[in-house]
């Protein structure tokens, strides 16, 4: 019997006004698998994640988590499914009004109703896991550098030990060394948790470090999907153009 994919997306459509963003997208992500979705700016990578999280409602299509349909799901059922997710946002999306440890503990206290002292201990442990000491726990997000914010965002994403973690451009805006630090932390944390992940990125070196599988999104569809090791020999002109960052090729960037 074939194993049910952790995430199964079929014929997903999403448009904003006249602009079609997702146009019949299909994607499967296996349990414990790390899939990196690459693609140009504005191709709908973030929209894909937001549709899975229920932040955007697709016009058509199916999204299944552990075999359970989640499109149109509301109320307690949706809350139950959302408990399976964690997410690291592009700019970390830390809450300005809360200290670092309160940010990390937020899902435990507000989402799971854990007692604050216990949540604080877990937050400090997770901050340690991403290389941040207890002195950082008392700071506020405005006092952190970009790399530290990403680490705190990662600690927050793993604090509730979710089954599925999304990473939205985890290395964007970081220097190459800090980018590699974040990539390695992601790999280690995901390995420890045994989580299923989808990462969206433009950063090919990040994709090579994080991914088991790479999928390329173009014109609202997955046009290539294969093992990370095969990305250089994909035989797909779109993938070749993208990973080598060439202006010439089948992909025509809209400049206005």
């Amino acid at each position, binding site marked *: 019997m074939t194993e049910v994919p952790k995430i199964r997306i079929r014929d997903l459509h999403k448009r904003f006004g006249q602009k079609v963003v997702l146009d019949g997208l299909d994607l499967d992500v296996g349990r414990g698998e790390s899939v990196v979705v690459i693609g140009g700016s504005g191709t709908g990578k973030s929209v894909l994640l*937001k549709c899975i*999280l*229920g*932040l955007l409602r697709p016009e058509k299509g199916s999204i299944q988590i552990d075999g359970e349909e989640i499109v149109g799901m509301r109320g307690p059922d949706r*809350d139950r499914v*959302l*408990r399976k*997710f*964690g*997410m690291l*946002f*592009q*700019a970390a*999306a*830390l*809450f*300005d009004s809360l200290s670092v440890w309160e940010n990390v503990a*937020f*899902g435990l206290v*507000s*989402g*799971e*109703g854990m007692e604050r002292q216990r949540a604080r201990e877990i937050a400090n442990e997770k901050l340690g896991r991403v290389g941040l000491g207890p002195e950082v726990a008392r700071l506020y997000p405005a006092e952190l550098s970009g790399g530290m914010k990403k680490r705190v965002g990662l600690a*927050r994403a793993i604090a*509730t030990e979710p089954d599925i973690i*999304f990473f939205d451009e985890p290395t964007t805006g970081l220097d190459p060394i800090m980018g590699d630090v974040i990539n390695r932390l992601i790999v280690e944390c995901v390995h420890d948790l045994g989580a299923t992940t989808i990462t969206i990125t433009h950063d090919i070196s990040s994709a090579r470090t994080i991914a088991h599988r790479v999928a390329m999104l173009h014109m609202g569809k997955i046009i290539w999907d294969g093992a990370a090791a095969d990305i250089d020999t994909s035989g797909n002109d779109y993938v070749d153009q993208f990973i080598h960052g060439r202006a010439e090729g089948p992909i025509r960037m809209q400049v206005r």
Partner: protein
Amino acid sequence: MNPLAIIGRAFLGFLATFGRLCIFAGSAVSHCFQPPFYLGLVGRQMIAIGYYSLPVVGLTALFTGAVLALQIFIGSSRFNAESAVATIVVIGITRELGPVLGGLMVGGRVGAAMAAELGTMRVTEQIDALVTLQTNPFKYLVAPRLIAATLTMPLLVLVADVIGVFGGYMIGVHRLEFNAASYLSNTFEFLETQDVVSGLVKAAVFGFIIALMGCYHGFNSSGGAQGVGRATTNAVVSSLILILVANYFITESFFAR
């Protein structure tokens, strides 16, 4: 372009916005009555809305009461009715000027702050982050602000009423040389419970409007810093207009004969 089409498009746009606002308000109110309740956040918002608005609302009330006493004295002296100054000041303050001017000042201060804060949270994906942390943004962000503003505004206006009447008293006694005891006696002799209660009901409605418009525009902002600025402007303008419109209808419902 066909002028009828322009009018039609504008009207349909207005209806769509009105519909979205009604759905937002309905959802926000329903979340005010469903657990979990973030009482700590309600308390924090009550301090932000009430305590920190006291100076601006108090000063507005003080000088409004003072000017009202002066103007009524000048007007009423034309037909020898100077003794009505205290009564008209207290009725004017409690029924109209306390709640309306208080509402306008709080609308400018608090409505803008709410729209800017929620708008920034929207464009920096903090509201999306709340959802991924199993927290309903309506319950966590909107409901505490609605509850706090609706409960706090009447308290704020009650204080403003007292300060406004005091402003009138100061001018009446020290500038217009009324007898202090008779001024106070005239102030309370003709004041009815309904005068104060109608002002407090208005204050509660205005508080609800301010929080609703601040949250609605902030929650739905988009387009970076410019979008947040637009949301803030829209929140202030729409709440001020709605306060004046609501004021008319509440006055009608209380005092129409």
